[in-house]
């Protein structure tokens, strides 16, 4: 059982780590074009926190990140990331609880799952707006996941450091 101040410190540290990841995305990844797509870290962030903090806290974090992404990036619909990121956080939390122990494998699997969910939602929106582009969209999704996963590793190390710091006495 951790106190209120520890909780606040923990989420402040996760916030700082998220900010570092966002800066990495904005200053580096935004300008990298690999196989025609750029690495997109945001879904992986929800997966990493979901993996370390469990489904409920992970979903809550993902909801906040989703709102921030919708405000900053804008999506195909106004609440795109707000809707899908909590599901990705929940999925990662459940995965870490019942399938794979939190670690690099789980991080990669949960990130891949987060991309599958986010990109499936993109596909759904495209289909609903009359865009019949399943092949192209699937290819973009595959490429996006492929080029982002290597960049998940340094971010995973950062979030693992935060998690270890916060759960040292657990």
């Amino acid at each position, binding site marked *: 059982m951790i106190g209120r101040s520890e909780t606040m410190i923990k989420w402040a540290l996760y916030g700082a780590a998220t900010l570092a990841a966002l800066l990495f995305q904005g200053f580096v990844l*935004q300008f990298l074009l690999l196989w*025609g*797509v*750029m690495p*997109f870290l945001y879904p992986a962030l929800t997966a990493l926190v979901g993996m370390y903090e469990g489904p409920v806290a992970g979903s809550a974090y993902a909801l906040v990140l989703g709102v921030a992404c919708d405000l*900053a*990036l*804008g*999506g*195909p619909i106004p609440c795109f990331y707000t809707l899908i990121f909590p599901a990705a956080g929940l999925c990662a939390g459940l995965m870490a609880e019942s399938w794979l122990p939190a670690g690099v494998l789980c991080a990669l699997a949960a990130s891949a799952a987060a991309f599958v969910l986010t990109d499936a939602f*993109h596909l759904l929106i*495209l289909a609903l*707006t009359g*865009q*019949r*582009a399943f*092949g*192209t*969209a699937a290819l*973009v999704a595959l*490429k*996006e996941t492929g080029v982002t996963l290597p960049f998940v590793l340094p971010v995973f190390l950062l979030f693992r450091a935060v998690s270890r710091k916060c759960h040292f006495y657990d």
Partner: protein
Amino acid sequence: MKNFLKRHGLWVLFAAAVIAVAMAVLSYFSNTSSPLANLTGVVASPFRTAYTAVSDWIGDKWAYYQDYQELKKENKALKKKIAEMESQVRQGQTASDENDRLHKLLNLQEKRPEFRYETAAVTERSSSNWTSSLTLNKGTSQDVKVNDCVITEEGYLVGIVTRVGLNWCTVLTVLDTDASLGAQVFRTSDIGVAQGDFNLMPQGKLKLSYLPAKSSLLNGDLVVTSGLGGYYPSGLVIGSVDAVQLDDAGATEYATLTPEADLANLSEVFIIKSFTAAG
């Protein structure tokens, strides 16, 4: 000494007078200097040479030192001058860039006097792989609104403003799947709808659909905004026809368009803040 002068003073004076007279006589009758003066000059000559050499050396060194100090001062002044001139060049470059921008704006204004423009710089490109958008550095404080058209300096359509903040706005380019504009084929006046297509977006192309049944498009035909409905200005160049194809059902034709604007390399654009709708 006193006694010596008392005893021999007269003799000394006499001898001196004789020598003086003798030297005077010798110098009067000689074409060169007197032998005594000559002797003195010969003896002093090497000393004079040495003295002159040393003096010249010291003079050189002193002159070198003075020159060095002078050059240091001059170098410092020149460096300062270069810095000032570089600053002036930079200012000139900025003024020149601004002049270019205003010149382009004037050209656009002359071409389409009914438009009111705002120049803007591209600050960010698409932030996701699923959209084609740009972020510009102008917003509501410059009277930019949602649905304002954005064009290049040549007047080619870039996209439409979809989100706007105080000092920023987001533009969905004509390639984005949410972009949909009334379009007209310039040569035939056929009306259609230019819209982004996710299949064509990676190739940097868009689709012209809802064409009339008997349209006869040719490759290279220019497609412009129709301006129907008065939402967007008419006559903005969207792109040129790349190919004409039948849809999946094989019932209707659509054309793929290549945008005239070089969307991948834009750095500066013009926002049309207001226009007079075609009557």
